[in-house]
């Protein structure tokens, strides 16, 4: 009954890919011949056996589909393979899903930006359709008929109007002899023929999750492996001046103590430096770290103090900044307004805190390096591993385990770099295990931010001017030294793409120097922009004496595709998607507002003695409206009792995982809204574990979260992140309705008991 430790070798991994038995293999870009494609690690001699493939049909009929995106709870392993299988006509019972290693042949593997389905939906369909085209061509040739007379379904090709059929496996030997068809020769099925896309799909890894068999980063074991726990400088950019390992080395099980390299600015994906204790087990390594005697030099970031920084950010938005969006004449309109409504908002740093702290296992021997890690970004991990191992990337294999949560943290490869450095230095495989304290103290933090919004109203109370100033340390500061604050494209998220039916609009950016490593966290700058805009819309409604829903719909304006000219920008980054395919669609934003207020009984809210808050936000090319019901509990704390989410993400592959992402977004959004705060004192993080970095627990969770998905055949938008931004403003708007207190600073607990 007891489960043995998982021991992986390269051979077993390749066998896991089932690429040693021959068959038809296709990459994401089918026009690239197998020979011409970049060779992956572990490539075999026959071209079709290379692992640069998404679909592999074996002679026994088994279809292997490679999932090249990381599974971190969004359900991509349950969703993406279905798209390929549906185009192919495969029976999911005879499909095996395997996880890709990090390799550029798969295209972009960075599992962030809510990009997996929206980014490659069509490309994956083409991959499945190309395999189908070849199998159909092989069958047609065998039967001496035209391909149009054949159809692929249920894992076989059928000759229409006859009883004849050939299983996929039976066709492989002929299909591999055919040229890979050109894209124009491959026809996608009509959407109605994709049998499983959009239906209730099973959770592929469900049984593994509930039996303890799912393999995460710390569950892989290699013979002779040591566990490393690292004492890192308290302040980023700090370094070790001296250390004494005597006491640490005296602890039974501790084998080695090694110093890690000090990172240079910009910090990129380098480790934090420090001193590592390597031991036979995790407990000994943790005790060994406690026994280290280290003197640190803190470096220039020691002056970082969150209270002072907050004031500096607020000062920054009290003065004019660099314009990022401009239409009409805001200054003139504000000067001539009958009334000006103004408010300032502040939101602190946040830590990702995935339940699985960062962890990575590396082995460097015999001129090759192999890594096992819960990484969102296997190619970045490969690149960092290669640097640390001193090897070319083609000598590095990054195996992607399941992720115990990611939220953007695991897109950064610093923990992989640490593991590879230590494995090379120690001469044995090393697993670096971060403790929760390490995770909270040494994160790539979500930006702290300040914003100031001003709206001018005419004598009738109609908005005539909108000025939005925002200041926050930009993510680019982690990657480049000369970053002094945001640039226009950093405002893409919730500022530039905000539909406003107001003639004079300007958005400005204030300076903000980064003093910690800034990283992206689930929905990124949309968190604070959504909070400020969603709150200010509600403030405007109350100032005007208009129902918040009616105000929101009026300010957004009529259903329309809002042009770049109307937005007042020269270009819209638009999450990397062409505006033609994914316009700023005021109609879809209105749609989720109308639907979510209908479902929550918005217009009858007073009758039921409830206080509801509403917010809606466009992000990652999707539209989400949220209503929350807030009540006071027995001890006077405001609690979210019920939530409604309406999401328009265009075409949806896996509705159940979309619902679960929206449910999770409500909880994630509640955590950051009510409790989330990372603060710095003397350059070091003041929080360290869940005691002082509080997250929502089941006792805080709403009684119910109702999710409604807008039925749509529009190009898919993102799902993992767009549910988060409207949650915080919906809560503060409900709290205002309940208590009359306007919360303008996150976390809410600093202003109102929650």
């Amino acid at each position, binding site marked *: 009954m007891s489960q043995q430790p998982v021991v992986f070798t390269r051979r077993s991994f390749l066998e896991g890919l089932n690429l040693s038995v021959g068959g038809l293999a296709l990459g994401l870009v089918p026009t690239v011949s197998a020979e011409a494609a970049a060779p992956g690690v572990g490539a075999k001699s026959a071209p079709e056996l290379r692992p640069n493939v998404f679909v592999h049909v074996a002679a026994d009929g088994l279809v292997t589909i490679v999932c090249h995106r990381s599974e971190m709870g969004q359900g991509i392993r349950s969703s993406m393979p279905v798209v390929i299988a549906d185009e192919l006509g495969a029976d999911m019972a005879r499909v095996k899903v395997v996880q890709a290693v990090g390799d550029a042949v798969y295209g972009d593997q960075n599992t962030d930006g809510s990009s997996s389905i929206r980014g490659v939906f069509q490309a994956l369909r083409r991959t499945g359709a190309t395999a189908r085209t070849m199998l159909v061509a092989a069958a047609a040739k065998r039967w001496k008929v035209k391909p149009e007379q054949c159809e692929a379904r249920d894992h076989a090709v059928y000759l229409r109007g006859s009883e004849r059929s050939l299983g996929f496996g039976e066709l492989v030997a002929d299909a591999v002899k055919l040229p890979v068809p050109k894209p124009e020769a491959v026809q996608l099925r009509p959407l109605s023929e994709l049998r499983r896309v959009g239906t209730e799909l099973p959770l592929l890894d469900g049984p593994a999750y509930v039996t303890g068999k799912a393999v995460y980063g710390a569950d892989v074991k290699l013979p002779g492996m040591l566990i490393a726990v690292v004492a890192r400088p308290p302040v980023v950019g700090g370094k070790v001046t001296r250390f004494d390992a005597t006491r640490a080395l005296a602890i039974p099980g501790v084998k080695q103590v090694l110093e890690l390299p000090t990172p240079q600015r910009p910090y990129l994906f380098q480790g934090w430096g420090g001193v590592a204790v390597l031991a036979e087990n995790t407990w000994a390594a943790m005790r060994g770290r406690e026994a280290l005697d280290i003197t640190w030099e803190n470096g220039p970031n020691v002056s970082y103090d969150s209270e002072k920084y907050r004031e500096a950010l607020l000062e920054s938005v009290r003065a004019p900044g660099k314009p990022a969006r401009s239409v009409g004449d805001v200054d003139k309109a504000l000067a001539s307004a009958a009334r000006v409504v103004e408010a300032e908002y502040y939101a602190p740093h946040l830590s990702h805190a995935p*339940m699985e702290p960062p962890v990575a296992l590396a082995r460097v021997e015999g001129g090759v390096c192999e890594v096992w890690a819960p990484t969102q970004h296997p190619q970045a991990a490969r690149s960092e591993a290669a640097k640390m191992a001193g090897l070319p990337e083609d000598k590095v294999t990054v195996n992607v385990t399941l992720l115990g949560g990611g939220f953007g943290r695991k897109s950064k490869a610093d923990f992989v770099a640490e593991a590879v450095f230590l494995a090379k230095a120690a001469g044995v495989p090393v697993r670096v295990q971060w403790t929760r304290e390490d995770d909270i103290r040494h994160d790539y933090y979500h930006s702290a931010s300040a914003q100031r919004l001003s709206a001018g109203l005419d004598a009738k109370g109609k908005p005539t001017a909108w000025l939005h100033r925002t200041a926050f340390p930009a993510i680019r500061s982690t990657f480049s030294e000369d970053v002094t604050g945001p640039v226009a494209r950093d405002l893409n998220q919730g500022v530039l793409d905000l539909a406003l039916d107001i003639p004079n609009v300007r958005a400005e950016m204030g300076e903000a120097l980064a003093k910690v490593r800034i990283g992206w966290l689930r929905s990124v700058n949309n968190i604070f922009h959504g909070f400020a805009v969603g709150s200010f819309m509600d403030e405007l409604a109350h100032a005007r004496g208009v129902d918040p829903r009616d105000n929101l719909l009026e300010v957004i304006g009529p259903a329309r595709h809002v042009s770049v000219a109307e937005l007042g920008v020269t270009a819209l980054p638009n999450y990397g998607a062409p505006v033609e395919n994914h316009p700023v669609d005021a109609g879809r934003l209105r749609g989720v507002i109308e639907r979510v207020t209908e479902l929550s009984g918005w217009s009858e809210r007073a009758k039921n003695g409830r206080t509801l808050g509403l917010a809606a936000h466009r992000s990652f090319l999707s539209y989400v409206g949220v209503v929350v019901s807030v009540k006071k509990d027995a001890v006077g704390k405001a609690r979210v009792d019920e939530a409604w989410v309406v999401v328009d993400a265009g075409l949806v592959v896996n509705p159940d995982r979309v619902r679960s992402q929206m449910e999770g977004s409500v909880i994630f959004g509640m955590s950051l809204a009510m409790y989330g705060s990372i603060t710095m004192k003397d350059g070091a993080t003041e929080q360290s574990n869940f005691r002082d970095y509080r997250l*929502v627990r089941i006792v805080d969770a709403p009684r119910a979260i109702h999710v409604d998905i807008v039925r749509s055949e529009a190009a898919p938008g993102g799902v993992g992140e767009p549910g988060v931004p409207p949650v915080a403003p919906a809560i503060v708007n409900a709290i205002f309705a309940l208590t009359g207190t306007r919360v303008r600073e996150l976390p809410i607990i600093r202003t109102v008991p929650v």
Partner: protein
Amino acid sequence: MSIRVRVNGVEQELDVDPEMPLLWALRDVLGLTGTKYGCGQALCGACSVHLDGQVVRACVTPIRRADGREVTTIEGLSPDGGHPLQRAWVELGVPQCGFCQSGQLMCAAALLAKKPQPTDADIDQSLAGNLCRCGTYTRIRAAVKKAAGVPDSK
């Protein structure tokens, strides 16, 4: 010091530091990796296991406390994943990343053993120590009730 402990029905003799937390004895020594490390301070519940049928946080339970006793981990909750809670978890699609779910299931199983027809308040109280960063709480409540045969009034 040698520790004798019955883990998932199998007698084990461990020659480890008696202060080593049960979590690391399970994971690093016995290779039972279904029990997870999340905080090391009994704040998140990811390491929850049963010690003589009672929930303990393995990350703060020294292995010496398990000497002569019976430990059940997620691997031993059922022979084949067929515990009513495991079935309900899969049927309702509870897990997102899945990392906290071993601990959630072990706590829920201890609740049902004690109280086969739990209320929402019972469920919340029993699972209050189990964090889920993905936010599966509403489905956890529904799945516990499904496993218990309690109607869900939502």
